[in-house]
């Protein structure tokens, strides 16, 4: 009895942390795609929604007749927020399940973990989240925003519209905020901001005691110059951060906070009335007024059976990535990786904000940049929209990478071509 109970606990624990859920068993005449999002662990909070969105997109496509006359079948695995497990699950999807393409990953760490697998086994990954750039792979498509499609336009908006002169760059301590802040600092200094007017602050994952930092921000902002906070604070740490801001009375009119990782989903856990006016920069908001968006939201509510579920930017990126893949496969007439890689460049599909997204030779896409202010109902109101911007994989503001470009069209096929030396192979992979 004792042993069985003990074993039961251990086995259950092990089972729960690594369970892989498979869709219906493979049928011969389906085309399989992999969905690689964490359904347990710390990232489940963000990634589960994307898994649902992918299943919805597949279902909708199948209603329209699938692709190449075959139904699409989604193979869902759970990498459990564990970066090495992402690589393992990716390998399993490609080698065992023989999927045609994989849609997945959220954090940059997980993407970096699977990158070598996709290059080695020559498969395709669509990555739907905004990221720090400084990477280009033959086998990965980055359908989220690069820094020039999110961070830089947001800073421009604050500088021009709100006249901000003093900057707090606050972020969680990992690769995306660090790289983004490095780019932003170089950019601000190129615009004539003094080093004294930039304060950079990092906090651990899941940081929940923001008292000292919010006080620091208030003190930094009381120097007589208009101050703003640029936040790359990740997921879970945001709710206590905004609660502390509200409680200490930091109003958006005095010190606005612009965030790159806070969307409708994150605000769902908050009373937003004291936060009205704080900003976020994305390429899509649920409140965007377009026909495609209205239809998408309706499908989402029907699919989840819950009309309170919000939509967010990474879902739009997944939508664009999936549709671009479908179109490229139709054009190529096969799901073969090399053929799809050839046809997908230049493919244009509608986005949800009423425009179009084109897959560029550097495996990034064109996106409009929207700046939104938080409203009392937890949605954003767009206060500025730019025309579509091409994602820039290698930042123009970092000395190491300003000469690099990526172009995966034949015959160049290079992810880091150095325009100064005229050779392929400057930095990175």
């Amino acid at each position, binding site marked *: 009895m004792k042993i069985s109970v003990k074993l039961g606990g251990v086995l259950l*624990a092990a089972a729960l942390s690594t369970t892989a859920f498979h869709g219906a068993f493979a049928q011969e005449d389906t085309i399989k795609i992999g969905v690689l999002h964490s359904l347990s662990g710390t990232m489940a909070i963000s990634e589960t929604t994307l898994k649902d969105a992918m299943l919805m997109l597949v279902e909708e496509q199948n209603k329209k007749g699938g692709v190449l006359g075959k139904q699409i079948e989604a193979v869902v695995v759970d990498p459990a927020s564990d970066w090495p497990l992402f690589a393992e699950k990716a390998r399993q999807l490609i080698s065992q399940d023989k999927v045609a393409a994989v849609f997945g990953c959220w954090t940059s760490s997980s993407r970096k973990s699977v990158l070598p697998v996709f290059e080695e086994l020559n498969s395709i990954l669509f990555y739907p989240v905004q990221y720090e750039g400084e990477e280009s792979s033959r086998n990965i498509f980055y359908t989220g925003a690069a820094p020039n499609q999110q961070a830089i336009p947001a800073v421009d908006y604050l500088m021009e519209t*709100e006249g901000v002169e003093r900057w707090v760059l606050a972020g969680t301590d990992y690769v995306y905020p660090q790289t983004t802040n490095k780019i932003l600092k170089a950019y601000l200094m190129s615009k004539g901001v003094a080093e004294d007017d930039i304060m950079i602050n990092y906090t651990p994952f899941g940081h929940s005691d923001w008292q000292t930092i919010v006080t620091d921000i208030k003190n930094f902002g009381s120097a007589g110059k208009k101050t703003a906070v640029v936040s790359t604070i990740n997921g879970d740490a945001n709710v206590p951060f905004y*609660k502390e801001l509200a409680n200490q009375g930091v109003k958006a009119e005095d010190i606005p906070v612009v965030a790159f990782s806070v969307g409708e989903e994150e605000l769902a856990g908050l009373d937003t009335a004291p936060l009205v006016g704080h900003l976020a920069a994305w390429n899509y908001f649920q409140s965007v007024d377009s026909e495609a968006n209205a239809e998408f939201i309706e499908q989402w509510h029907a699919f989840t059976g819950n009309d309170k579920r919000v939509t967010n930017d990474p879902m739009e990126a997944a939508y664009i990535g999936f549709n671009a893949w479908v179109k490229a496969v139709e054009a190529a007439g096969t799901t073969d990786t090399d053929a799809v890689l050839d046809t997908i460049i230049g493919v244009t599909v509608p986005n949800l904000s009423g425009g179009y997204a084109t897959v560029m030779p550097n495996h990034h896409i064109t996106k409009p940049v929207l700046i939104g202010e938080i409203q009392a109902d937890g949605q954003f109101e767009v206060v500025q929209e730019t025309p579509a911007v091409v994602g820039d994989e290698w930042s123009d503001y970092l000395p190491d990478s300003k000469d690099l470009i990526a172009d995966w069209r034949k015959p160049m096929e290079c992810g880091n071509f150095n325009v100064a030396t005229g050779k392929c192979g400057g930095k990175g992979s």
Partner: protein
Amino acid sequence: MRIRFVSLIFLILSFAAPCLAQSDPKPLINQLANANFKQAEDIIGQIAATGDARVVPALEAFAEGDLYARKADDVVFITTASGSKLALVDPLTGESAGEVAKGAMTKIKVNNNLRRAIRDALGALTLMSPDRNARLQAANTMLAAPSEDNLELIETALARETDGEVRARMEEARAVSLLTSGRSIEEKREAIERIRNYGGRDAIGVLRGAYGSIDASLQPDIDKAIGAIESEIALWDMAQNVWYGLSLGSVLLLAAIGLAITFGVMGIINMAHGEMVMLGAYSTFVVQDIIRSSAPQLFDWSLAIALPVAFLVTAAVGLAIERGVIRFLYGRPLETLLATWGISLILQQAIRSIFGPTNQEVGNPSWMSGSFALGGMNVTWNRMWIIIFSLSIFFALLVLMKKSSFGLQMRAVTQNRRMASSMGIRTPWVDAFTFALGSGIAGIAGVALSQIDNVSPNLGQSYIIDSFMVVVFGGVGNLWGTLVGAMSLGVLNKFLEPWAGAVLGKILVLVLIILFIQKRPRGLFALKGRAVEA
């Protein structure tokens, strides 16, 4: 310059009848219908320049985003939602203008810049309002944006003001505005003195700003004032740090206090402790959800109602875990660790399946929102209540352990099980209820933590390490050790944080604890005597 004009107009108006208004604000307000942000800012200035106090509600509604234009004829109204429709009110007269469907109206967009412009405009318009709070707010607005153009207006208002606090604010607003004006050196010297007494970082900003343009004979006064304010701030910063430390300590105490019983007193390595905290937070969410939908007037009481609910829910779960799993594993710490870790994953995934993986919104009742100033310190209400709450739980628990018969049995069983058993104590049930008590207290902690942290399935994970750290550091088996351990870790953390940053600060604390445990393996307050060896 425009503001001076406003002030002059207002001065005239405040003594003359309102019917003398020079221009009618109504067409100006209607112009907002088709204005972009830049144009709207100009229009706000013009509306304020009419000096007509009737525009105040319209401007306030604009800042709140309640101003809409009728699509058919671009006439602007203040609106309130009424079901799926919008109730219209005339922006000047306040007369009702019926209800229309939302689709017939366009919202007039507002951004931070416009809100700021509106706030400044309202400051000038409401400085002599009959409402005391409006005057106080207006004085604060003026204080934050010094301008010599406001000086005459403030002085007029000051002459009529009777309320002490508002008067003080106005005096300060007058002082900051006077500093950059063309007034006499004597008056300026007095103003510097007043700003010095007002203190704070903003005062330093004002003084520094005036330093360059002011008469050279006053510069030593400013230097002195800045020096005095700075040393004052340094003292208050110290006090603020201690307060933040205690506040962090109280959160640690809350998280650890249930563990002090299950791990400290009973010796069970309970990895599912964090999930009990999480269940407590979800109980709060459920209670609030029911209150929101069925009895919204009780919302301010939601936490009081959630406390017993959370306690009972988590105590019941704790009891089930003890009876179902842990009682078979007493004396085998490694297996207990694995089993409880498994339970914690089951509970997390169960909550994730029931409530979904996203954060749930737990509201702050009004008495837990906002902050108040204590000298140069800013104290937020929620943190203060959490400190009070965690200390009261601690002392209640202490009394229960030392003074009640259940506490006596509990101590007897943990100290010498066989002796207690032969005295007629039903030791298995004491074990079960002790574990349930520890779990229940973790649940209560969850109610408080739901006020400052995410309510998500991962809530517990972030506290489990900290809880063990506190209990081990304080001394296993000693409640006082947990209190002192939590508070000293909190204060230590908060003194390291400004100096080393949040990331390094946390690492340093861990290193210090490891070194400390090397020196004193039993923690701060080690239990002594035979019980320890048993």
